């Protein structure tokens, strides 16, 4: 599978600082996005700490396949998924400890959404209200559940999704990195097919731009850089109340050999 990917971040139209962080580690096919919180630039500290920790942990794992796992490998999940989960827990304790040591950083935290592609499978680890989406055959599917109070209320049927969009408590999270000594990490695995498009984004995008619009932009722009730029422009046009970060990864088939050419006919020009 070939992967074309790019990510962009933008401060938005209202805030003074960008507290989002992201990293794309192309050789590893690792995508990490984090949205920091806690005033006076500490959100930025938390989110970059989260991203760096996870990238380093996964990099070490690649360089040394025998690197110790914090958790026992499980039957249910692939090794990469378990490793990603451990990485997120490590990031949580680093942020938590930093916040305990430095009183002025008390209360800092971050969301985290990470995806790691390996051998046809995408491992996902997630805490907070950033999101991962998969566009497949024109269908945009959210792969993560928001850990926000409003999302929980929707899941429990207390309020409708429409009420949630206009809720005043959208910023209240139920889980985040750095809030407690330990964190429960959502993990998942998804099989990836050619022409799938993965999107990771911070809530600065999803609060401003609707899902059909996101799907439309991802389908209209086949170049990941152009798609990312388009999404950020859309969010800014709507007001850009928060920092906006997007990572777009487009999965493509390996160049076809003659046998598959026989099976499917000549490759379509994208």
């Amino acid at each position, binding site marked *: 599978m070939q992967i074309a990917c790019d990510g962009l971040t933008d401060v938005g139209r209202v805030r003074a600082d960008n507290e989002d962080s992201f990293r794309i580690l192309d050789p590893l096919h690792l995508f990490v996005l984090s949205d920091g*919180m806690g005033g006076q630039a500490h959100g930025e500290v938390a989110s970059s700490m989260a991203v760096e920790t996870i990238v380093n942990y996964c990099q070490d794992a690649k360089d040394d396949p025998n690197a110790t796992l914090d958790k026992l490998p499980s039957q249910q999940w692939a090794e990469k998924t378990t490793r990603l989960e451990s990485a997120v827990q490590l990031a949580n304790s680093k942020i938590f400890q930093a916040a305990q040591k430095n009183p002025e950083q008390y209360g800092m935290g971050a969301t985290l959404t990470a995806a790691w592609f390996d051998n046809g499978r995408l491992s996902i680890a997630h805490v907070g209200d950033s999101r991962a989406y998969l566009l497949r055959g024109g269908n945009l*599917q959210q792969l993560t559940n928001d850990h926000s*109070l409003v999302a929980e209320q929707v899941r429990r*049927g207390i309020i409708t999704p429409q009420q949630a969009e206009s809720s*005043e408590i959208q910023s*209240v999270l139920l889980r985040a990195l750095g809030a407690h000594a330990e964190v429960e990490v959502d993990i998942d695995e998804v099989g990836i097919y050619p022409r799938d498009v993965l999107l990771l984004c911070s809530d600065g995008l999803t609060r401003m731009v609707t899902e059909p619009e996101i799907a439309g932009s991802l389908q209209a722009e086949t170049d990941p850089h152009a798609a990312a730029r388009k999404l950020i422009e859309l969010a800014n046009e709507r007001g850009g109340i928060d920092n906006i970060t997007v990572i777009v990864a487009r999965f493509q088939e390996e160049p076809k050999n003659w046998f598959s050419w026989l099976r499917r006919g000549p490759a379509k020009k994208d």
Partner: protein
Amino acid sequence: MAKLSLMFENKLVKEVPIGSRPVSIGRSPDNDLPIDNLAISNYHARVYYEGSRLVVEDLDSLNGTFVNDLRVERATLHDGDSIWIGKHHIKVDATADAAIPWDSGRKAAAPKINETMVLDTKARRDMLQQAAAMGERSQFSPGRLKMPTLVVLSGKVNQKEYVLTNKLTVIGKSPMATVRLRGWFKPPMAAQINQRDDGYYLGTGDKVPTVNGTPIQGPTRLNDGDLIEVCGVRLNFIFRE
């Protein structure tokens, strides 16, 4: 005259009457209602009369002040309300006062734009659960859990039926597909079923599936009993208790 009772885990800690002077609440010992807990700001909140209305005001505290289950910056208090600060709560007893009409406008704190916060104390979470128990309207209510299931009616696949547990279900030949098609020239991903908040949607893959004999045009919501056909495989979508 109204009074405030500071409670911790349902035990009364202290009672103070509210007079003409504001009652201050915080970690610092010089408050009228001192609460010695790290989750509480030095000068956390105050309660005072504004005309005949009893008002609580958050003093820009770090972890916030909640009235019943809303985070507030300022709110009118009513008899029987609870003010939650960290793990403590303060009962409001205003029985001696004239009743204050409910529509006097409780305003939840608008989310400060640069402040995302994490819901912290256990009490908040318990409260959410209580609220959920009362307002349980969800189709996923425990006890009558309905599992969406695909029953294979005909065609070559690897199982007789499939319970849809994932957000994404793929029908195809790929080894990652949930419903694995067998046989030559079957596409890796013939069709897909996506779980959304309001139900399950059938979408196209390399083929266009039919639902009850009609080819789908874009994502189609599946209903109990629908007949899906793709690549010579016929599947019955049902909710099983």
